[in-house]
């Protein structure tokens, strides 16, 4: 009898253990997912919903209230319903006639050219340079990577101090007895200020792009490259016909990031020119206005940019993904 009973007890034990095991696994999954989900709900969904709500609010008696609760805006006349509902959007569209707003958008759009059409191609070239371990590549690695590990504030300070009348470049030119006149006095003033911010963005942006591109290129199987070498493929041909197609997903990602810089370049002009001399960007304007009490204006500008920008970016991504579709390794 005892022989028969023993296996029954043994069979029952795993059943209980399996339940505990399921519970433990589920608890583990729930615990690990709880934080990111809460983070998403609060920091993304909550914030964005709040921002959307803000675009339908205005100030009355010092408080942000729904536009229909503001008697200064809503007079109860149903023919004014839509103009009242979209009060902040109408305000934004009206501001488009202002030269300051036009300058804001044009100054921001320039960063598409800088990021996608200047910084990215240069980065691709230098990444190939680093990837092929051409002489001096370690030096260039440091030059490119340094801006990525320094905080932006320090980087902008180093940049502007280096190019100041008492900076090391002026000092070096003095040593060389080069007469540069008032060149360094005017770099961050007037029309030159824009150029200085753009040059900074190219310099600081290359490092970030190079890091990602070299990582992408390093995944390309050596066999392919060795095969090219045996076939006598020139470095130029290898770059355009092999490296670029095989690194295309990384390039696509960086191109999309570059497009987004139209909306995200914020602190570069803030630290270098305080947004003066036509260097104010959409991101900086939203940042500065968010520091005040009129939060509905930056929220509306932000939502407008998202609505306009998101389809363009998605369409571009779709188009770029179509390229080199059948290339892989």
């Amino acid at each position, binding site marked *: 009898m005892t022989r028969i009973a023993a296996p029954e007890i043994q069979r029952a034990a795993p059943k209980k253990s399996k339940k505990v095991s399921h519970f433990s696994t589920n608890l583990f999954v729930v615990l690990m997912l709880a934080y990111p989900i809460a983070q998403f709900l609060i920091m993304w969904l909550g914030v964005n919903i709040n921002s959307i709500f803000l675009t339908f609010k205005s100030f009355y008696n*010092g*408080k942000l209230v729904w536009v229909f609760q503001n008697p200064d*805006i809503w007079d109860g006349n149903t023919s004014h319903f839509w103009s009242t509902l979209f009060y902040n959007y109408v305000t934004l569209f009206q*501001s488009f006639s202002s030269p300051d707003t036009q300058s804001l958008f044009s100054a921001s759009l320039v960063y598409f050219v800088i990021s996608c059409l200047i910084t990215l191609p240069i980065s691709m070239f230098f990444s190939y340079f680093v990837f092929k371990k051409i002489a001096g590549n370690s030096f260039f690695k440091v030059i490119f990577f340094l801006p990525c590990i320094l905080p932006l504030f320090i980087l902008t300070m180093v940049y502007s101090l280096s190019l100041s009348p008492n900076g090391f470049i002026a000092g070096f030119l003095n040593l060389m007895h080069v007469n540069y006149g008032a060149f360094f*006095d005017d770099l961050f*003033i007037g029309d030159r200020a824009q150029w200085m911010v753009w040059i900074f963005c190219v310099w600081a942006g290359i490092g970030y792009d190079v890091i990602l591109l070299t990582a992408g290129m390093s995944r390309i199987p050596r066999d392919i490259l060795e095969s090219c070498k045996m076939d006598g493929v020139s470095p130029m041909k290898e770059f355009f016909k092999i490296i670029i197609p095989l690194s295309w997903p990384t390039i696509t990602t960086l191109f999309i990031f570059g497009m987004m810089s139209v909306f995200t370049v914020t602190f570069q002009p803030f630290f270098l020119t305080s947004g003066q*001399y036509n260097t104010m960007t959409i991101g900086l304007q939203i940042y500065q206005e968010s520091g005040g009490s*009129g939060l509905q204006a930056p929220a509306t500008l932000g939502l407008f940019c998202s609505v306009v920008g998101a389809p363009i970016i998605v369409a571009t991504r779709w188009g770029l993904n179509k390229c080199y579709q059948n290339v892989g390794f």
Partner: protein
Amino acid sequence: MKKKSMMLLALGALTSLAGLTACGGGSTSTKADDEIWICVYDGGYGTDWLKDVSASFTAKTGIKVHYDADTSVLDRIESALRDGGDYDIYMSHGINWQSYAANGWLANLDDLYTSSVDGFSGTFADRLANGAAALSKITGDDKAEHYYKVCYTQGAGGLVYNVDMFKANNWSVPTTYDELVTLCQTIINAKVSDGGRGTVTPIAWSGKDRQYYWDYPVFEWWYQLAGKDKIDTVTKYMGPTGKYADGYEMYNPSSYYKEFMQAYDMWYKLIATNPANSMASSYSATLASAQANFVNGKSAMIPYAQWAKFELSAIADNGTLPFNIAMMKTPKATASAADCNYMVGFGDSMVIPANSTQIANAKKFLNYMATEEACKTFVKDSNGAFLAFDYTKVDLSDLEATDTFAKSVHEKLSTTNFSLSSTNPITYRTVNSVMPWAGNKYYYQSACQNNDGYTAAKVGDLVYNTAKSNWPTWLRNASLSD
């Protein structure tokens, strides 16, 4: 065993996160009944005054005072007021107190304003500097006006000069603009050695970091040329018809803003078209560079405000300036004009959060700050800055006997004071300042770089057009309509 470890890992991670989150919760719950916490903007006044004022306040009342100086106070004050924070008093510039008060996040200070002050026969409101009370109240939901802040400092700005250098060279402090122009030429002609290979230059200033310091003399010239009534009219932000719709007409350089452009033109002729009056490259110089030039005796004057001595001493050897400094009354625009003082930083605020558990004690501290003793301590410890209280009966004679700067600031504050601070919503609903430089666009630096591009006539048009094109947006964002 492996699963147990993973469970522990997950629980550990969550516990750590919860712990980290709790760090921001503040220490309000653990605060004792007899202590208050103050957060002050870490600016040009230091914290010595807070240390001394707190010590004497504690000695009198038994209430302990803790304080933190923080440059990021403005970044977190809103969430702290809304959700609860560590502090019972905030002191800073740029506090959007009108919005916070309207949302019910600030403690009502009406009883503080009617409370009596130690050693003074009147009320707290009577102790305030002229005009401070009017800037501290807004209309509440009950349609009555209530106080929600106390003005922090009253200020003075203008040209700070090297007293010892002036004395040694028999240079008189100019009292009119013409005398200032002559003085600059005298300094240049004197070719006084700067201790190195160069000669002393009249003025050092920073175009890169502090071009707005030129506002201080320019605003005072504007006030002298336009008069109080015209400036009051302009700062109502309503047009000639008394309506907001054409309020941008207040920036019209041929009518309402004419004198402002005249004041700018005076600066333009003194500095922009006369580079010899400034240190080389001043218009692109950093603040540190301008400070160093003045502290090292390379220039005789520097535009600054009441925090000049505190900041300039900080960069001098041993933390002490090697010479006496003073702030001159801004040389008058015309010989017949009266001296006046633009109240720099008059909009700065001291507020008590409505969710503070120590509102009564915090009010006691603000009340104590109005006493003559605290006012004097502030002047002494901040190296010449003044709280926004009436100093006419505060005896500063012993301090001023040795401190030429504090004495000069006091004398300047004793002239006709004016401020451009306003409680009109257009001034605080639009982040970019609307007055006097429309859109917060400054032209001092640009005018030095490109004289012809930024004459008074051209800058007048720029300011007017900026205001005109942005006016409808500013009005709508402030929910202002006629």
